[in-house]
């Protein structure tokens, strides 16, 4: 595996982590405090 491929997969991991946090772990967060979020899931 060359360096490019490793970096690309790191990007994939970050993207997946972000999406999972945004759509599956959203519930808990928004019930407690939504004030830190930019727009509370608008769009």
């Amino acid at each position, binding site marked *: 595996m*060359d*360096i*490019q*491929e490793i*970096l*690309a997969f790191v*990007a*994939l991991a*970050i*993207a*997946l982590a*972000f*999406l999972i946090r*945004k*759509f599956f772990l959203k519930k808990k967060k*928004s*019930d*407690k*405090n*939504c*004030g*830190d*979020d*930019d*727009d*509370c*899931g*608008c*769009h």
Partner: protein
Amino acid sequence: MVSNQNINVALIGNPNVGKTSVFNQLTGLNQQVGNYPGITVEKKIGFCKLPNNVKANILDLPGTYSLNASSIDENVVIELLLNKNDKLYPDVALVVTDVENLKRNLLLFTQIKDLEIPTILIINMADRMAYKGITLDIPYLEEHLKTKIALISSRKGFGIDALKKLIVNYKSISSEPCLNASSIDPEYFNTLRKTFPNQLLYKLWLVITQDVNFLNLDRKEIRSSFTKSHSDLKRLQQKETIKRYQFINDVLKVGLKIDETVAKDFRSKLDRVLTHKVWGYFIFFLILFVIFQSIFEWSKIPMDFIDSTFASLSSLTADNLPAGVLTNLISQGIIPGIGGILIFIPQIAFLFMFISILEESGYMSRVVFLMDKIMRKFGLSGKSVVPLISGTACAIPAIMATRNIENWKERLITILVTPFTTCSARLPVYAIIIALVIPDNRVFGFLNMQGMTLMLLYLLGFGMAIFSAYILNKILKIKGKTYFVVEMPNYKLPLFKNVGINVIEKTKAFIFGAGKIILAISIVLWFLASYGPGEKFNNAEKIVTENTKENPLSEAEFENAVASQKLENSYIGLMGKTIEPAISPLGYDWKIGIAIISSFAAREVFVGTLATIYSVGGSDNEVTIKNKMAAEINPVTGEKIFNFASGISLLLFYAFAMQCASTLAVTKKETNSWKWPAGQLIFMSGFAYVVALIAYQILK
């Protein structure tokens, strides 16, 4: 940042007194917009540098007519003012009033004063005093209202420095109340005082009459011993209001003089035209027409520019970075993904600009007045017009804007039908498909066909919203008191600064909110499209060579064939092929199917998804997203994928389908039940499928 050393300042006032302009004047672009915990009420905090190196956190509270809350937004104000432990509890309250509506605006002021918070009275729009023949006796008013007055004009920007000085010296401001609460009903309040000797009487009164959380007192305890019937309470509230007005009238009799002979009446002339039974509607539709035409026309040049910039950026990176997986990810996944977000900035900025101009100018209330009778026939209220129009920006704030509809049935119906209005997330999808399937011709020399189609789609959205409201009105059996009170504010020329800040804030929220999702999805999509399982993907070159043994392809053709063989057998291709039977009757291929599925994260992801899929699989001749889509051809029939029939079918699908998880969440929050969002999802999406199916089958 919110810091404990800073002074906490709360900005309070009636709607339409220029509170937001004062906020913008004090804070400039130093603002943070968020939400109150657990509820979707917008929370705006700004930071302001005051003289003597003092800093202040300025909290812009929702507009309210009094402390007798009738909505969640207004509740926020009371809850904050009653809770001394809140980290934003104000050291000083600024009550903003409009010099032309001083009498009514002072009602709220006297209530805030009775909470014994140091209060500064801001009399705004002072630049209009001469015009309206108003003179004020400031020292007299200050003495009798027991406050300091800042006479300002947030439009012209004068008086702001004096106001800042007053805020710094807030400790010198009296916190003595204006009105003795016990005078409302001496007997009742005396027993109250005896039971709770350490509490402020007016606070107790608020806790009894309102539905607020009050941390220092157990409300149930008060309630049980001091319960009064609903109408008794209201009688007392009426008495309170009368007392307050008596006090205000007495003060203003000396403190405010109006020379009617000097006053100019611009409002009634404009009202006569704008609420006229013919001209009123004509002007309203003309305004809508101009808005939708210009969104399309004015955005075209910047949009094309962004599109081609990103296309050349993409090929530039592909050519200049060392070849490899990361370079491909950047040039085929990330850059088209970012381009797919930024391309819609022009249209979204224009849309938010128009909506905030309509609201700022005071015109929106005239539309409410004009439309109420008609809307009631469909089970809606005149006030439903505001959510329906602001729904063209985003359904989420629009659904929140239904809170000032007093009748529950009208409000529920408005919430349920608002997602039919064409939100800004649909705009990207419409824009690109219209550009592909509708000719760029002009009818009668000035009507742009593409602009007309866009306008028709907006009308279709409104029409569908109203039609379903009519049906819901027949089905839903909810009885409730109907009442309707809407303030008709004075006309104002919208302030460039207010509109500008609003547009910047909203556009930023779009880019960083939706943008992050779109970017992440395009990265994931690129991987799914670039990797695949099994022989068919890994040995694509071999398979293509064997299949084309008889008529060998040119080198470019060969490469294209390999790329599409790979794409079809990649992970995403296999997923798409699985759902293809369900969507091919609608005229879509599997690539569109993937784009539709990813649209459930956010509708505007559609374009970015197609851009990524086509970048991975497509030819390099076509660089921009639009051209790539135009060049797509169905391998079986040889027809264009985006033809008139499939284009119309897609437009209709996006017009009706419920594809926004955030809207469903807001509906759940506002209706307190999963029943309604579930209904929206099933009904809207099912209907969209059927309509798109019929349209394609007829047109193909």
